[in-house]
């Protein structure tokens, strides 16, 4: 019983991490139609900002609060300077963001060297539930993920900003005709997606430690999750991330990890092949 509970916690907490990473990717992919190959590097930047704050003596949580804003600002600038040129062609956008990601990743690698740098958990220790001990920080990640998910949902579905974003997504020409500044909306959406990635990076850096290839690990998983969930809505990628994250954490408990690892991808691609619209089809929130 106790071990089952521990396993479930393990699975849920990994699923939460994937959801957190995919949120930003999904918003950018769904709302802008761009598969952002630099998203993994935004995660890395978030982790790096947290590390910088910690290394300069600031408390870790302060770095975590700062990370989304810093990365969001970087995302906004990059969108205005570079990404904007790629909207017309999705494949070119992939290549362009890949190049961008390469630049960011290698710069960070140059800055930190080839090391694995650890950042302590701001909330250490464990929560005891009878005989079971679960990591307090991982639990916090689950809670924050749920809060962020709810917040994003409300932002997109209940606020006038969300309405503008959705209008721009559905029909850019009509949105422009209605007086919505679509370039600004695109910029804000991209910055928001980048900020979410920064937050994800900041939160997971105590778990995975900081190294230059931190982001890549999640990138392909994230893409697959977005495709499985269905591009075009907010819920779709989140659902996809939940499925992929849970599967990749759960399968190794019942079969050899190597097979499980590959099986998740094979299943996902096969699923997308036969249901291209994804788990949750349709536009909207």
């Amino acid at each position, binding site marked *: 019983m106790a071990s089952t509970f521990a396993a479930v916690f393990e699975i849920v907490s990994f699923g939460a991490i994937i959801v957190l990473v995919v949120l930003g990717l999904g918003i950018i992919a769904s709302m802008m139609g761009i*598969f952002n190959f630099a998203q993994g590097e935004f995660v890395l930047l978030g982790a790096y900002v947290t590390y910088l704050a910690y290394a300069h003596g600031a408390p870790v949580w302060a770095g975590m609060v700062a990370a989304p804003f810093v990365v969001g600002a970087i995302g906004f600038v990059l969108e205005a300077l*570079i990404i904007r*040129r790629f909207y017309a062609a*999705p*494949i*070119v956008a*992939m*290549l*362009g963001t*890949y*190049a*961008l990601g*390469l*630049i960011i990743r*290698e*710069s960070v*690698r*140059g800055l930190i060297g080839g090391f694995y740098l650890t950042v302590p958990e701001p909330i250490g220790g464990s929560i005891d539930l009878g005989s079971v001990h679960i990591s307090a920080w991982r639990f916090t990640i689950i809670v924050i993920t749920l809060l962020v998910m709810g917040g994003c949902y409300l932002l997109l579905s209940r606020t006038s900003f969300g309405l503008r974003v959705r209008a721009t997504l559905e029909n850019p020409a009509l949105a422009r005709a209605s007086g919505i500044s679509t370039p600004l909306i695109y910029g804000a959406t991209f910055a928001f997606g980048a900020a979410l990635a920064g937050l994800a990076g900041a939160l997971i850096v105590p778990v995975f430690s900081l190294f230059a290839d931190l982001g*890549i690990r999640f990138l*392909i998983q994230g*893409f*697959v999750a977005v*495709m499985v969930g269905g591009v075009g809505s907010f819920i779709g990628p989140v659902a996809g991330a939940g499925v992929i994250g849970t599967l990749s954490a759960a399968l190794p408990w019942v079969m050899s*990890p*190597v097979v499980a*690892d*590959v099986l998740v*991808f*094979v299943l*996902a*691609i096969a699923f*997308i*092949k036969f249901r*291209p619209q994804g788990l949750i089809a349709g536009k909207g929130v």
Partner: protein
Amino acid sequence: MGGAREAVARIGEGPDVVTGEDAPAASAPAGRTSAGWKVLPIVEGLVLLIALVLPWILQDYLTVFATRVVILALFALSFDLVWGYAGIMSFGQALFFGAAGYGVALMARDLNVTSILLILPAGTLIGLTAALLLGGFLLLGRYPSSVIFVSLGTLTGSYAADRLARGWYYLGGQNGIPSIPPLTLGSYEFEEGPVYYYMVLGILVVTYLLCRFLVRSQFGLALAGLRENEQRIAFFGYKAQHLKAIIFAVGGTIAGLAGSLYAFHEGFVWPNMLGVVFSTQVVLYVLFGGSGTLIGAVIGTVIIEGVSFWLSDNYRDVWPIILGVLLLLVIMFRPLGLVSFVLGERERVGSFGKEPGKGPSKAPKKEVGNAAP
């Protein structure tokens, strides 16, 4: 290294050379690519010439490096066919390269097969089979697949294969398969060096010519149409998906050939050969050199590998950043790659099938008026 520097220099002075040669014949309206002079054969000839004399100029260890570059150029060619000509973004081209590499490495390790007459066909076959399976799955079917799906599908396939190779003890795990014996022909052993270099170069030239024939045939014309406007090609009655699957398989075949040569040249295979690292590397080569021209793939490989080798002593850390910046600049401002500096759009597109007025003299009149921009 020397080759790379020469290549850079040549690209830089390309236009001058051409106009210089062009000037006497410029009775026709001024323009770099008037009917009489074509830049493409000159570029191709120059590259071939440099490649032929290279082992005499270079020291031995550089010849080994040059051999590696030639093999990678073969690999780049396979990606260029798929992306540059058919518009299929194969982000997992290394899957075929690495699968063939692993396959022939296993043949050498477990079956003691090293004869070139068996290894190269086997590697080619592995590449073909893998590409048919993956391409058939991703590209064929009731509904046409979206470009995004195909590119992410190939990327995922390559990534999954990488993970599988890393975790599978039989394939050597993280370390891969070391100490593959040299290729043999009868009792002769192909050691690294000039002989291996010329063998590989010969294979590259033959493959290049075959590809050139292919993309200039009616089939190539259909492919170009596919790349530009898939729907219209479908309306003409072509099976767009079948065309794509065929060219994808051809690309996989060439990648398999390159992979088996690479495995035996390096003497070991390791998981990166299958994975995202090599897959993205080949994308860089082709985008940089110029996709949609076969020679662009070769030039891109030579330049990127050459410069990276040249810089690797002093600027190893900075080079990937520079590479990223250059790539971004190329994508933003020179989407057709470096060769587009010397190659006009008209020549890049080229003519297809049999040229109608292929008489003794120059091309028909309509070409004359069509000066390069």
